[in-house]
């Protein structure tokens, strides 16, 4: 604590001790202002210093305060001079787009940086049109850096703003000229402790999938990737290909930086899997089986060991922990040697007819570049997975025998609210878990480790005091279930799910007082991933055992049986846009004809009923 004040104390001490060294200056005055007692710095020294402080320049009015008049104002004290460093901006060029990323900046003495704006201009110095990117330190998905005209030079600045949107620091201007020879750019931030997968797809149908394992850096710091793709001609101008080798038309630059300071990471602690997807046109004239992944090591192209080619799937897969420029190289196809196309065409021909054999490469249609969101996560073995995009079903999937699931949802680009729920083998549904995803056009985003909440049921809706009530449901196999009983004294306990994901918890009601109670559960996997809570299941401790008729009866479903689930206004077992429509039909009506529309039974259909419907939403 003493050390904290030492700089300040010594500063004041120096000021007092050195006071005689300052000259007392003349008062300055004009018709509309006067400066009284100006303290000028001694001419012989420009600064005073010790081992732990430095006093530079004029020191006047050391206490905080403001002096003002109609025509001037003098402010002093540290808090009148908050500061924030300027962001340092880097750029990468794309086809009709530019990728920007910048250092995260922090404010001092009263400023808190709350987000960033990208300013764009077509003339150096502006005026700039600003677009907010929130708290991101990269431009992915921003309208400011996409939809640009190739060959036109754009000027960008990045402006840090405080939490109220006031600009507090602006970077130096950076110029960038998009070019058709640069295909795609991807920037972003992710934690090196979590697994991630990024797919960059070019308009010509080629793509590269970068799979990062969890713990790719042992430090676990945030990493800033910078992926870009170029035409071969752009690359080989200064990185000539080895003699006898031909290159695919699409080449890649992959780099990683520390998010905090944009210092480049030369190598990762774990290898990253790279899957190059090529098209026939991309490797035209190259024998498919000779394709291999190469990396530019600064002076020459080197083969990456373990490179495997699948000519049917048109992929080359390799692992690497060092990053720079990558390319697919191979040897020229001759009339006598098999080429990449026939094998691939044959594979396609089997499924769709077309292609055909022959020794020459053919221009078979390539798959169009797609924009999609790939989701992976944990549920229950055999669970039906429903993925909602902006509230409507976008994809369905089924978890495997281990409870793992994945699903892809096509999108066109923008901010989406995705949500996921699972239905177990007994027909119980988990709660719907929502999360926003921002994705730009022609970009694939992968989200992994999504864990849905466990399902919960009970054998009784009322248990006789002293008897046992059993709760059960499904969750991720072999994970720990945290069971919580909401009572006067809250009970928290754990139970482990079996290999099939089934969990069961018996509670002796001796521990509870008579009356209403509620139970809920939460999953924690072996990887320490924690799920959202399950729905809350109501039960009663009373004088008799009353079994649940069928399935669950959560306490938060107070409606009559005929209403089905809360929010399921047409009793079709789903809560979706039809129920929303029905609710709107009765909006603001008192005692509606469809009593279920008034979910909370307060006599009017309003926002509260809407909120309950959204809670139970199934899409």
């Amino acid at each position: 604590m003493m050390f904290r004040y030492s700089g300040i104390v010594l500063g004041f001490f120096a000021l007092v001790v050195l006071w005689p060294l300052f000259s007392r200056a003349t008062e300055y005055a004009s018709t509309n202002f006067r400066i009284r007692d100006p303290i000028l710095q001694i001419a012989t020294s420009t600064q005073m210093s010790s081992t732990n402080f430095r006093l530079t320049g004029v020191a006047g009015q050391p206490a905080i305060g403001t002096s003002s008049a109609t025509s001037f104002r003098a402010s002093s004290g540290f808090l009148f001079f908050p500061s924030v460093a300027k962001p340092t901006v880097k750029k990468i060029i794309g086809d009709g787009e530019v990728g920007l990323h910048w250092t995260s900046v922090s404010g001092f003495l009263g400023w808190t940086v709350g987000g960033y704006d990208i300013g764009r201009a077509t003339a150096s110095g502006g005026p700039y049109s600003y677009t907010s990117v929130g708290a991101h330190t990269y431009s992915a998905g921003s309208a400011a850096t996409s939809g640009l005209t190739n060959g036109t030079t754009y000027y960008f600045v990045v402006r840090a703003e405080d939490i109220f949107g006031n600009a507090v620091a602006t970077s130096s201007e950076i110029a960038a000229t998009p070019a058709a020879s640069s295909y795609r750019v991807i920037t972003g931030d992710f934690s090196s402790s979590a697994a991630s997968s990024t797919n960059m797809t070019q308009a010509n149908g080629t793509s590269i999938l970068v799979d990062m394992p969890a713990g790719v850096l042992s430090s676990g710091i945030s990493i800033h990737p910078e992926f870009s793709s170029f035409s071969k001609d752009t690359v080989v101008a200064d990185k000539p290909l080895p003699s006898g080798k031909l290159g695919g038309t699409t080449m890649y630059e992959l780099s990683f930086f520390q998010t905090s300071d944009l210092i480049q990471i030369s190598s990762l602690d774990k290898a990253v899997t790279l899957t190059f997807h090529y098209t026939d046109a991309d490797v035209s004239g190259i024998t498919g089986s000779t394709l291999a992944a190469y990396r530019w090591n600064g002076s020459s192209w080197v083969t990456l060991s373990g490179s495997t080619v699948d000519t049917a799937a048109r992929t080359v897969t390799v692992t690497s922990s060092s990053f720079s420029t990558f390319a697919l190289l191979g040897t020229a196809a001759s009339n006598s040697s098999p080429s990449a196309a026939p094998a691939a065409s044959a594979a396609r021909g089997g499924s769709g007819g077309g292609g055909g054999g022959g020794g020459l490469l053919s221009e078979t249609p390539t798959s169009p570049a797609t924009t999609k969101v790939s989701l992976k996560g944990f549920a229950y073995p055999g669970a039906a997975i429903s993925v909602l995009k902006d509230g409507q079903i976008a994809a369905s999937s089924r978890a495997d025998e281990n409870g793992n699931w994945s699903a892809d949802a096509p999108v066109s680009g923008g901010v989406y609210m995705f949500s996921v729920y699972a239905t177990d083998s007994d027909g119980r549904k988990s709660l719907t878990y929502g999360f926003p995803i921002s994705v730009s056009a022609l970009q694939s985003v992968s989200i992994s480790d999504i864990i849905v909440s466990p399902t919960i049921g009970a054998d009784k809706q009322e248990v006789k005091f002293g008897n046992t009530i059993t709760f059960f449901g499904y969750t991720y196999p072999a994970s720990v279930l945290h069971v919580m009983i909401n009572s006067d004294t809250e009970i928290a306990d754990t139970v482990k799910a079996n290999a099939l994901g089934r969990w069961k918890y018996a509670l002796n009601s001796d521990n509870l007082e008579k009356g209403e109670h509620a139970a809920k559960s939460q999953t924690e996997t072996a990887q320490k991933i924690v799920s959202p809570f399950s729905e809350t299941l109501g039960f009663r401790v009373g004088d008799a055992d009353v079994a649940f008729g069928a399935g669950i009866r959560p306490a938060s479903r107070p409606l009559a049986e005929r209403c089905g689930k809360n929010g399921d206004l047409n009793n079709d077992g789903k809560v979706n846009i039809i129920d929303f429509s029905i609710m709107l039909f009765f909006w603001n009506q008192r005692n509606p004809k469809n009593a279920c529309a008034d979910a909370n039974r307060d006599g009017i259909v309003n926002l509260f009923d809407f909120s309950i419907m959204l809670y139970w939403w199934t899409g």
Partner: protein
Amino acid sequence: MKKILRASYSFLLVAGVAVVPHVAAAQSLFLKVPKTAYETGDSFQASLVIETGGQSINTVSGLIDIPQDKFQILDVRYGSSVITLWVDKPKIDYGRGVITFAGGIPGGFNGSAGPLLNFGLKARRVGAGTFTLQDIKVLLNDGQGTEMKGVVVKPLVLSVRTPAPMPLSPPAPQAFPPAEQQQEASLPPPDIVPPESFIPMVSRHPSVADDKYFASFSAVDKDTGIAYYEIKEKPSLLGRFTDKFDTPWVRGESPYILRGQWWGYEVFVRAYDQAGNSTVASAQKPFHPAVISLFGAAAVIASALAGYGTARRRSRGSKKILRR
């Protein structure tokens, strides 16, 4: 760096200064703007943002009161909102100078700086204007419609001043663009992307419009947001040969009570965004069960008549043969 911060806050304690840095509330709704001072003629965009304070919410409603004497409201956009179902789409009431909104998020939202809507403003008169958020309701995603407690809503004060005077000795014209060009224009580019594809649904329920068929729909536009819908009904079978029986495109909202209740129809729904881009989707409205029964009865009668006719012809034929 940390030492500097510590020393700064220590100074606060020593000096006993009552200047409080701006700190975001745990759960709050606030307006974000590029800066707080503008010149007349400047255009910029403001955003309404929610910070949920670690809780999951699913419904938000309220209004933004805008000082129209100082600022002109240009437009309101909600395509990039975390809200995906709008009970009351954000709309501008120029008479009252407010933007009202109410909507929800299936599955809930838990996060900071969740965008709700954006609106364009133009500084029109010199002075200070205060933007306030009123009637704000934020409901928790807890299945009980619980209202979130302690939501902080902060007014926003923006000032407008006259543009800076031109220098007395202007440099060469190339160095200083015209004043119009120097004005800020922080507005988004025009929306040229149509709404996303969507799936309308046709259904009926005894509680809705006396069990009539209705169409339900909700489209999403990722830029300006959905402005309105148009609906057209094309009769099945007949529609293959002529569009004479098609209903005209009419504006409607979900639920839309269909005009054709008895016949089967293909129901087209056209969603327009606020920039006029549109996307069409369709759903099949089935024949009313009574019509199907009628068809069935007619088919039975027709087949019976046909059978009777055939039997009669055969009977006559056999009689002729017998006569011969």
